[in-house]
């Protein structure tokens, strides 16, 4: 029953513009995107001044390259957290390693066609994500525990697959040269993975969340599961989908990373979990679900890589990157608290 309202005379243009304007003004104050952009400018300026070789084409290229892999994971994490019910995915890092080694073994050891191997690897990532979803939705195991367990499961599965007869984990390095296009090619100076994967995927997810029925349903599910159910939304399906997408994004990240370093190791991604979740929360994702700002998460990914990169160039040890991340996270959460207190 499509509702046809084309005949209704409403002064649509004016009232709609009025609606949008009032809305923008009230949101500007609390907009995470603007805050992050501001922070980005400040941090970038800081390093441009104090860090050697920071503001060079080469370095900017480097920043773009490294923001892709963690950024994809952060986007996946965002969808999962937004779905509510304590949604979180601690297994993303392991799913990266698992997909990586599957692709690697198929191409390197079994000589499978590159594209076929990639497709299988992506399917494997989706399968791993789907398994998470099934445990959470049907076995009703809390997401924290499920993904904690699958984190172990998937990483050891990856190790098992890569094992040789003596029980050692063997990385794969014999990729065909064509494989390097994903992680090593640049188009007009811009890394392919950034312009052909990260940006388009961000845009797709943005449109998905903001403009499609799936997005509306996802936000409703995370905001209030009961209201969503009473409105006819299939909450179970939504949740299965977001975990599957998280797995897919992890697999894409694996594709890009293995292409970039021209090798597949089962432990790839093993310390990306914390960073992915932190970037997501930094990007305004509400830990209890229902609120997601894809563009802000995108900006947050680049921001964090800029921070890591800058710290590295200044000569601060890499371990401080993790520390800075922790501080950023706490800062973002304090900000959230203040904002929430203000509006109530």
């Amino acid at each position, binding site marked *: 029953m499509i509702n046809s309202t084309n005949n209704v005379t409403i002064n649509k243009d004016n009232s709609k513009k009025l609606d949008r304007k009032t809305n923008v003004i009230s949101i500007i104050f609390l907009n995470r995107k603007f805050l992050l952009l501001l922070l980005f400018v400040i941090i970038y300026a800081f390093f441009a001044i104090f860090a050697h070789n920071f503001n060079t084409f080469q370095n900017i290229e480097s920043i773009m390259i490294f923001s892709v892999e963690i950024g994809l994971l952060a986007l996946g994490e965002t969808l999962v957290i937004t779905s509510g019910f304590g949604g979180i995915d601690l297994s993303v890092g392991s799913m990266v390693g698992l997909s990586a080694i599957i692709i690697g073994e198929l191409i390197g050891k079994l000589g499978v066609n590159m594209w076929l191997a990639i497709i299988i690897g992506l399917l494997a990532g989706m399968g791993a994500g789907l398994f998470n979803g099934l445990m959470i939705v049907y076995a009703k*195991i809390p997401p924290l525990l499920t993904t*904690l367990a699958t984190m172990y499961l998937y990483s050891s599965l990856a190790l098992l697959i890569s094992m040789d007869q003596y029980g050692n984990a063997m990385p794969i390095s014999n990729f065909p040269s064509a494989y390097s296009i994903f992680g090593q090619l640049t188009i007009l100076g811009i890394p392919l993975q950034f312009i052909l994967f990260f940006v388009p995927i961000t845009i797709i997810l943005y449109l998905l969340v903001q403009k499609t029925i799936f997005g509306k349903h996802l936000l409703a599910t995370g905001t209030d599961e009961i209201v969503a159910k009473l409105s006819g939304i299939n909450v179970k399906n939504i949740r299965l989908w977001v975990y599957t997408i998280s797995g897919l994004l992890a697999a894409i990240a694996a594709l890009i990373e293995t292409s970039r370093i021209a090798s597949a190791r089962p432990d790839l991604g093993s310390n990306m979990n914390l960073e992915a979740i932190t970037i997501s929360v930094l990007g305004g994702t509400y830990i209890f679900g229902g609120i997601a700002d894809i563009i802000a998460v995108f900006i947050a990914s680049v921001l964090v890589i800029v921070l890591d990169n800058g710290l590295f160039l200044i000569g601060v040890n890499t371990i*401080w990157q993790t520390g800075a991340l922790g501080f950023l996270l706490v800062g973002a959460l304090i900000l959230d608290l203040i904002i929430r207190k203000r509006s109530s």
Partner: protein
Amino acid sequence: MQLLKRRESMILFFIVALIIFFSIVTSGRFASYSNIIQILVNAVPIIISSIGMTMIIITAGIDVSAGSVVGLVGMTVSVLSLQGIWSPYDWIIGLLLGALLGFFNAILIWNLKIAPIIATLATMGIYRSLVFTVSGGRWAIGMPSLLLWIGSGTIFGIPFSIFLMVALIIYFIYFMARRVTGRNIYAIGNNIEAARTAGVPVGKTIFFIYTLAGMLYAISAFAILGRTGLAQSTMGTGFELEVIAAVVIGGTNILGGEGTIIGSLIGALLVAVIEDGIVLANIPPLLTDFVLGALILIAISIDVVIKRREIA
């Protein structure tokens, strides 16, 4: 004292079965006296930390910063002792540091109302980076023997750390059963609103458990130092997951409200038995993580199934 509930008995049975299995596969080496002691020694840090983690999870919280606390305390105390500062009392500094790190977690969780998973994920990162500051990237080796003695010294041939562990376990079993704070922990996990209205000091209790957990992680750090004799900046990485696995497998409900120290002890023993057995039986050690992950899933699935039966 209540009898062991079905869950703990099941796991004990499983442990015994595993011991038999591994003994056969390793032609008896597994069940040797020295190996059993080895298993216990390996289990000690996990068991001690599981005491604090059990309390935390009973209140429906979680603490993934445990490994980073272990690393930070371990490294700090090693560096101090190597430079002769405060010796031989550097372990007191370690305890205080652990308490401080746990206290900070509590501030994030209670005062800033940050969800425990996020708060401790953040501190996990912060503390881990501080390990590096303290160590300057170098390993710490050759600490004075008093410090190491906590972890490796023996009394009548049995390592001191085992005595320490037993003492702590016994005390905290008593604590959870008979001290008001112990009961309050359960009350908070069961019905935080009712607890609040009944006058239970919820905030103070939260601070207590996270701070205590920090101190217990510190003691675990001493035990690990004693066993390995060195500290590096990756010390404790992944430790929290072993502890959480032990607690969850041991019957503590991740949603809060129930759990026992004994259960976590048995869960930790199971983990230690599996880890040791796999190495001894020449099974690829990489399989350990797989087994741990699968066990967690199985344990919780069983919990869920039992719960559904109860409701229906």
